[in-house]
C-alpha cells in the first residue's frame, strides 16, 4: 500500500515535469531573457483607447537612462492607455533568438545600426516602409549620415536617435594651440606636433587604445583618413590590403617612434594617463566625457581622420506586428526621435542628436561636445549594416597588433588580414 503511494507520487512528479516542459516556454528559457510580457489584447491599433503595453529592450546606461526615461514618462502621461516597459537584457543577441520565436520579444529594440543586418536576416525586425515611413520623411527629418545608417538593401529598418564618433579630446592646459593639429586629414602635421610636444614636455602627445592592436574601431580614423573606403562593403568585398592602408600603417609606425607613444595602452590606461596629465590627448568618444568632467580636466575636442560613426537607432520587431502594436510602437519611436525630445536628451546627456532640427537648436549647438564630436561625425564613415562587417574586427585588430609590436611588416600583416576576412566572408555566404 505504502509502496504504491510512492509510485503514484513519483508518477505525478514526472507528469508535472513533462507538462511544464511542454507548456509556456519561459520556464525553460535561459536566464538571460528579460522579463518581457505580452500585450493583453490583440485589438486593432487604430483603437487608441484600449490599453496597450509596449516593451522596449535597450542598451542605455546608468545616467543616460534618466533623461530618456523622462521622455517615455511624458508619452505615457499624454497617452494614458499606453504603458511603456523599459528593460536592458544582458546578452541581447541570445535573448532575441529565444524570445522572438516564442512571441515573448520586445516591441521596440533600441540598439546600434550595425545590428540591423543580422537582425533583418534572422527575421527579428521588420522594415518600416510597410508601416508608412517613407524615404522623404527620413531625409527631411534626420541627418544624412544617420539616414544612410538605417537604410539597408533599399529598405528602412529603424529611426535614428543619436550619432557618435571618436575625436581627439585634448587637455587645454597642456596642449596649447601650437600643438593642436589644424587639418583633420593632415597626419604628417600630427606627427610633427607630437614630436615637438615630446621634445618640450617629455610626455606623449596622444593616446589611442586602438594603436596597440585588437581594436579595429579606434584605429579606423587612421585607415579611413588615409583613403580606405571601408574594411568590408555590402557585397562582401574586402579592401584592407590597399596602398592607402599601407600608408596608414607606415604613418602609425612613424608616429610611434617620433612621438614616443605609450606602447601598451588600453582604454583604461589612456583614460587614466589623460586624467592625470601624463598624456596630452585621448582619442576617444562621448562616453568618456562624463569621467573627464568628474576629473575636472579642462578639455577641448578636435576632429582627426575619418572615424566610424555609430548610429543609435530604434527598430520595430516582428512581435510588435504580430501583437497588433506596430502603429503604437512606431508612434512612440517617432515621438522619441522628434526634435523637441532629442534636444532635451542631447542637452542632458551631451550626445549628438540625429534629428536635423534638434542639431540646429542653439542650445545643442552650444554644447561643448557638439563642435568637436559633431564635426568628427560629419567627416566620418557610418558603421556598416551588413553582417559581413562582423568579419572585419578580429583580423584588422590582429594585423594592427602585429604591425605595432613589430612582429610583422605592414605589407605582410595587411595581406594576411585581407585573406582572413575574405575567408570569413566566404564561409558566411
Amino acid at each position: 500500500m505504502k509502496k504504491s503511494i510512492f509510485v503514484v507520487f513519483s508518477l505525478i512528479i514526472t507528469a508535472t515535469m513533462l507538462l511544464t516542459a511542454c507548456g509556456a516556454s519561459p520556464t525553460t528559457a535561459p536566464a538571460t531573457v528579460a522579463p518581457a510580457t505580452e500585450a493583453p489584447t490583440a485589438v486593432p491599433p487604430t483603437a487608441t483607447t484600449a490599453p496597450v503595453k509596449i516593451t522596449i529592450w535597450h542598451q542605455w546606461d546608468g545616467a543616460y537612462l534618466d533623461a530618456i526615461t523622462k521622455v517615455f514618462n511624458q508619452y505615457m502621461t499624454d497617452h494614458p492607455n499606453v504603458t511603456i516597459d523599459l528593460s536592458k537584457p544582458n546578452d541581447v543577441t541570445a535573448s532575441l533568438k529565444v524570445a522572438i520565436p516564442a512571441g515573448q520579444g520586445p516591441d521596440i529594440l533600441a540598439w546600434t545600426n550595425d545590428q540591423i543586418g543580422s537582425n533583418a536576416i534572422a527575421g527579428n525586425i521588420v522594415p518600416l516602409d510597410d508601416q508608412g515611413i517613407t524615404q522623404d520623411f527620413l531625409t527631411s527629418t534626420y541627418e544624412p549620415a544617420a539616414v544612410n545608417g538605417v537604410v539597408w538593401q533599399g529598405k528602412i529598418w529603424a529611426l535614428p536617435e543619436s550619432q557618435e564618433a571618436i575625436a581627439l579630446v585634448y587637455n587645454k592646459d597642456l596642449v596649447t594651440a601650437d600643438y593642436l593639429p589644424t587639418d583633420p586629414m593632415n597626419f604628417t602635421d600630427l606627427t610633427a606636433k607630437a614630436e615637438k610636444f615630446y621634445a618640450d614636455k617629455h610626455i606623449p602627445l596622444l593616446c589611442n587604445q586602438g594603436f596597440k592592436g585588437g581594436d579595429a574601431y579606434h584605429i579606423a580614423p587612421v585607415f579611413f583618413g588615409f583613403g580606405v573606403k571601408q574594411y568590408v562593403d555590402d557585397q562582401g568585398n574586402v579592401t584592407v590590403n590597399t596602398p592607402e592602408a599601407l600608408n596608414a600603417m607606415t604613418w602609425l609606425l612613424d608616429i610611434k617612434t617620433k612621438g614616443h607613444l605609450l606602447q601598451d595602452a588600453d582604454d583604461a590606461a589612456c583614460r587614466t594617463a589623460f586624467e592625470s596629465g601624463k598624456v596630452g590627448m585621448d582619442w576617444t568618444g562621448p562616453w568618456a566625457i562624463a569621467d573627464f568632467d568628474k576629473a575636472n580636466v579642462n578639455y577641448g575636442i578636435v576632429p582627426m581622420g575619418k572615424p566610424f560613426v555609430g548610429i543609435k537607432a530604434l527598430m520595430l520587431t516582428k512581435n510588435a506586428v504580430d501583437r497588433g502594436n506596430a502603429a503604437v510602437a512606431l508612434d512612440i519611436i517617432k515621438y522619441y526621435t522628434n526634435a523637441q525630445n532629442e534636444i532635451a536628451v542631447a542637452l542632458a546627456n551631451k550626445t549628438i542628436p540625429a534629428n536635423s532640427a534638434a542639431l540646429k537648436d542653439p542650445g545643442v549647438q552650444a554644447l561643448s561636445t557638439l563642435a568637436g564630436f559633431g564635426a568628427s561625425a560629419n567627416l566620418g564613415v557610418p558603421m556598416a549594416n551588413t553582417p559581413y562587417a562582423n568579419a572585419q574586427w578580429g583580423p584588422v585588430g590582429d594585423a594592427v597588433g602585429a604591425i605595432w609590436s613589430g612582429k610583422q611588416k605592414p605589407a605582410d600583416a595587411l595581406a594576411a588580414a585581407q585573406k582572413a576576412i575574405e575567408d570569413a566572408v566566404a564561409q558566411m555566404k
Partner: protein
Amino acid sequence: MAQVRGWRKVLTVLAFISPTLIGILIFSIYPILFNTYISFTNRNQFHPNPDCAVGLTGLLEPTCWAVFKKHAVTGLGTPFRLQTPLFGNYASLMGTFFTAPALLSVLKVAVCFIPLIVAGFINRRYSRELERPISAGTVNLIAVILGAIIFFGLSGLSAFNSILASSDFFTVFLRTILFVVVCIPLFFIFGMGLALLLNVKDLPGKTFFRVVLIVPWAASNVSIMMSLVFRFFFSETGTLNQLLHILNVQPVIFLNSSLWTFFIIVLANVWYSYPFFMVTILGALQSIPAELYEAAEVDGANWGQKLTRITMPLLRPAVVPLIVLSAIGAGGFQMFGTAWAINQGGPSQGAGVPGGTDLVMTYAYKQVFQTNAYGRMGAFAVIIFIMLFIATIASLRVSRVTKGAYE
C-alpha cells in the same frame, strides 16, 4: 508469478528514477545531439533559420515543433542546410592535418619517442630483480641520447614546425597541453609544500596562515576580474614598471612578449589553484598514521626518504584524482577567464593565425564570435568533447593502475 513481480519491480524503479532521467534527457542528451547535428550544417548569421521540411531538422529544431511554429521567424536569410562535404566544418578546423605531409611529420616526431618507451619496458622488466646489469638511470640516459640522435637525424624540428603550420587548431591544442603540463606540477609543488608546512606540530599562528593561504581560492570565483589585477601589475604603466622606473630602468613591455604573457597566465592560475591542492593534501596528510614515521625514524630514514617513501605513496589516492580533474577542468585544459583577461589570447601574431597565448577556449571564442558561426562552434565543441573523453578514459585507467600503499 515471478515474471509479474519482475515487471512490477522494473516499473517501480523506473518510476523513481524517471524524473532525473527525463531531466538528463532534456537538459543534457538532447542539447548534445542537437549540437552535433548543427555541427554538420552551415548555420551562421546568414543562414540562421531552419528548413523544417528536412527530416532531422524538423525533428530536432525547437522552432519547427508545432508548439513554437506559430511565431517562427523567416528573415531575409536562406535557411541553413547540411554541408556538402558533410564534415566541412571539421575539415576547416583541422586544416591540412590529415594530409600526407603533416601525418608524415607526426610519424617522424613519434619515432623519436620509441627509445624512451623501450627504456621504460626494460626498467620495468629488471625492476623486480635484485641485481641488474645496468642501472635504471643509465638506461634512461641512453634512451634520451638515442632519441635526440633520431630527432636530429630525421630533422624533427622542421617536422614539428610543419605540424604546427598545418592546422591552427593543433597549434592551439599543443599550446594548451604545454600549459597544463607546466601548471599541474606547480600546483602540486606549492600545494604540497604549504601543506607540509601547515602540518607541522605546534606551528605558531597556524590558524591565521590557514585562513590567509585559502584566500586566493575564494578569488578564483571572480577570476576574470582578479586577473585584471595581475594584468595591471605587469602592464606598461603598472606596478612592476613603476618600480623599475624608480630604479631608473626602462619599462619592459611584458604583454608584448608571448613568453612573458604565458608566464603571467601560469602565475595567476597557480595563485588561484594552489589552495585547493593544499587543503586536499593537508587532509590526506593528517590521515597518515604517525606510527609509520616513528618506525621509519627508528630505521634511520632521513627527511627526504620519509617524504618519498611514506608520504607520497600514501597521498596518491587523494592526489591523483585531484590532478586529473584539475588538468581537464577550468584551471587546466578548459582555461578561459584568466587567459582572456590578461591579454585576450596574447600578443597578436598577425591576422588569421592564433595569438601568442591563445589556448583552446580563447581560440574557440574568437572564431565563433567573429562570425557567429554556430555550425563551426558545434564542430569545435564535438572535437573538444572527444579529446576530453579520451583523456578521461585514460585517466581512469591511470588511477586504477596506481595503487595505494595499503593494497
